């Protein structure tokens, strides 16, 4: 049980007063960006990333991961009180959460959501503690073909498991890969798709893209139907919390089932959103009161929240062990690690033990801090959305511009951010998924590198990707997922039974 010892050391690092303080700051900032329109986990962390450059990597990642937990908690607040899902995986929470708030049971819904999130994340972190070292040990034997196979599988999962149109998923992904290829080719030094522009030689920074795609576009789409938010009042006090907690143990089976669904789905990219819907659907189907779902059942809040947080946490597992993030927010965290000179992947578990276990320990503590903060401060956070839109929106726009600038100290990047904002606005309205675009932009260079190195080894023979059972089976699974929408069309009956 080497893990337990390392984890205890990690707690030692995370429990230093300075780091505890950063945790608190991180959680508060995280809830704040989770609540504010236009600032979600991914672009919020992207904006705050430059502020951490002066810190030690351990402290920085503790703060950033706590921002992540905070943002996950914050998403539930807007879903329940304002019927605005902060993140795609909070959509299912609105089904029963908002009706509960309309019936004046907002406190109950919020307590249930926060507690469920906490439990889901806890199960996810426990899973990471014990599974991550095994996966990392396994991945140490990976060569370029295996890495390419893992990337291929991740992207295929978007096509096979995404909820939207597979064609649109594929288009959005390819655009991301192409944007990643813009600029200097690291292997040959040739300029690709720069068309004479000196600004384009650096290529597109995905952090700038994320701020535009998720931040600016969100502001634009949220104001279409008027310049204000309408929400329910939140009254939450110790009595409501304790009463709800007394109620919750009855739903342990739902929580456990949803956590497992979340962990399982979260490891593959694009997992959190389907996990939350799937978990909601399963809870409704298995409940005696299934017909009352959608009108304010507490189970309808517990199930998706637990699954979404279990999945959101599990998304960090492939990021840490393989360097393949499972969500846009995990991708931004990965970008942060790279900026601090850490190379996420199996070697990190060997060379940076302090860092890895400090991070994992901070996941446990950050969740506890997060739960306390949100339960205590929910009315204040909800009050933020009652600040006039004109004030919030203009400040968020300024913050986004600052965030885009600080990534590379480039004024041109602010303009790039605006363009990405417009692209994101249109794509989102047409139901093009943005997550594959962002992940392709992040992983594009490394995917290409793994692909080219593999072909160099085999002298151009594509069968290298099937050269052993390991990469062969990963590739086969990826192909099956990528072709899943086509297969579904030919065998509609069988696919319907499987789904």
């Amino acid at each position, binding site marked *: 049980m080497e893990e337990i010892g390392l984890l205890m050391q990690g707690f030692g690092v995370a429990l230093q007063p300075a780091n505890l303080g950063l945790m608190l700051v991180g959680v508060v900032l995280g809830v704040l960006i989770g609540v504010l329109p236009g600032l979600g986990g991914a672009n919020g962390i992207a904006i705050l990333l*430059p*502020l951490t450059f*002066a810190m030690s990597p351990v402290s920085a990642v503790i703060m950033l991961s706590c921002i992540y937990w905070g943002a996950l908690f914050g998403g539930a607040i807007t879903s329940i009180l304002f019927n605005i899902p902060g993140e795609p995986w909070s959509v299912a929470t609105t089904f029963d959460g908002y009706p509960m708030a309309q019936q004046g049971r907002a406190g109950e819904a919020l307590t249930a959501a926060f507690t469920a999130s906490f439990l889901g994340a806890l199960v996810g972190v426990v899973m990471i503690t014990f599974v991550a070292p095994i996966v990392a040990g396994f991945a140490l034997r990976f060569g370029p073909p295996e890495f390419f196979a893992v990337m291929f599988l991740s992207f295929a999962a978007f096509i096979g498991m995404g909820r939207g*149109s597979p*064609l*649109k998923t*594929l*288009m959005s992904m*390819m*655009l991301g*890969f*192409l944007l990643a*290829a813009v600029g200097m*080719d690291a*292997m*040959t030094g*040739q300029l*690709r*798709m720069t*068309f004479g522009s000196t600004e384009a030689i650096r290529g597109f920074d995905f952090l700038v893209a994320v701020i535009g795609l998720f931040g*600016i576009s969100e*502001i*634009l789409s949220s*104001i*279409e*139907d*008027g*310049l204000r938010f309408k929400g329910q009042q939140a009254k939450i006090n110790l009595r409501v919390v304790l009463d709800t907690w007394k109620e919750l143990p009855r739903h342990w089976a739902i929580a456990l089932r949803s956590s497992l669904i979340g962990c399982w789905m979260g490891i593959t990219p694009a997992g959190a959103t389907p996990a939350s819907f799937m978990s909601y659907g399963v809870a409704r189907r298995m409940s005696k009161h299934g017909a009352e779902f959608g009108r304010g059942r507490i189970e309808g809040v517990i199930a998706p929240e637990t699954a979404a947080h279990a999945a959101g946490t599990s998304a960090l597992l492939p990021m840490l062990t393989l360097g393949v993030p499972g969500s846009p927010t995990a991708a931004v965290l990965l970008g942060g690690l790279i900026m601090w000179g850490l190379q996420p992947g199996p070697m990190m578990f060997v060379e940076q033990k302090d860092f890895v276990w400090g991070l994992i320990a901070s996941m446990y503590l950050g969740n506890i801090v997060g739960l306390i903060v949100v339960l205590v401060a929910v009315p204040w956070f909800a009050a933020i959305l009652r600040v*006039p*839109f*004109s*004030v919030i*929106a*203009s*400040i968020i*726009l*300024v913050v986004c*511009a*600052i965030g885009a*600038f*600080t990534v590379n*100290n480039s*004024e041109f990047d*602010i*303009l790039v*951010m*605006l363009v990405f904002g*417009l692209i994101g606005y*249109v*794509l989102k*309205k*047409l139901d*093009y998924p943005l997550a594959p675009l962002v992940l392709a932009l992040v992983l594009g260079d490394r995917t*290409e590198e793994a*692909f*080219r190195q593999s*072909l*160099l080894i085999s002298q*151009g023979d594509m069968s290298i990707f099937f050269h052993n059972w390991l990469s062969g089976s990963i590739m086969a699974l990826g192909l099956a997922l990528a072709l899943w929408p086509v297969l579904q069309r030919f065998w509609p009956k069988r696919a319907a039974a499987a789904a």
Partner: protein
Amino acid sequence: MSTTTFQAIPSARAAGIGMRAMETATALFFLLAGAVAMADSLRLGSGWGADGPQSGYFPFWLGAVLLLASMGQLIAVARTRGAPDASFLTWEQGRTVLTVLAPTAIFILLIPFAGLYGPAAALVAWFMWKLGDFAAWRALASGAATAAVTFVVFEIWFLVALPKGPIETALGY
């Protein structure tokens, strides 16, 4: 194919841009991106060089997949012709979006000339005055306060230098 879909705007919905027109335009944009990527990759060489796959090898196939997927999408959109079209953006909504988008664009375009702080203060003041119905003096004061807080947080606490214009230079920064 595209020209006919652009014309097909049924009268049932509010005036504005139709969903089908926008779907078509977006798919054409992706198609163009795919074609451009393929053309540029061919220029660089998309085959097998002396030292392995050439620079254009990977992007060429990405572009090809994008091109094919966009064509598929165009066909899928064209197939929905005849069915009632939904609204992408009514003119009314478009105007609301523009009230936010236009000042933002001006703000961003001003940054290289005037630095970040001045335009940021102006943006906050404009939003509050024009969109929020605040009194002009309160809007201006809030804008200035935002700029001042930003300055303290970034330049002094976190030591992050943001773009500065002539006013900041005159003040000695």
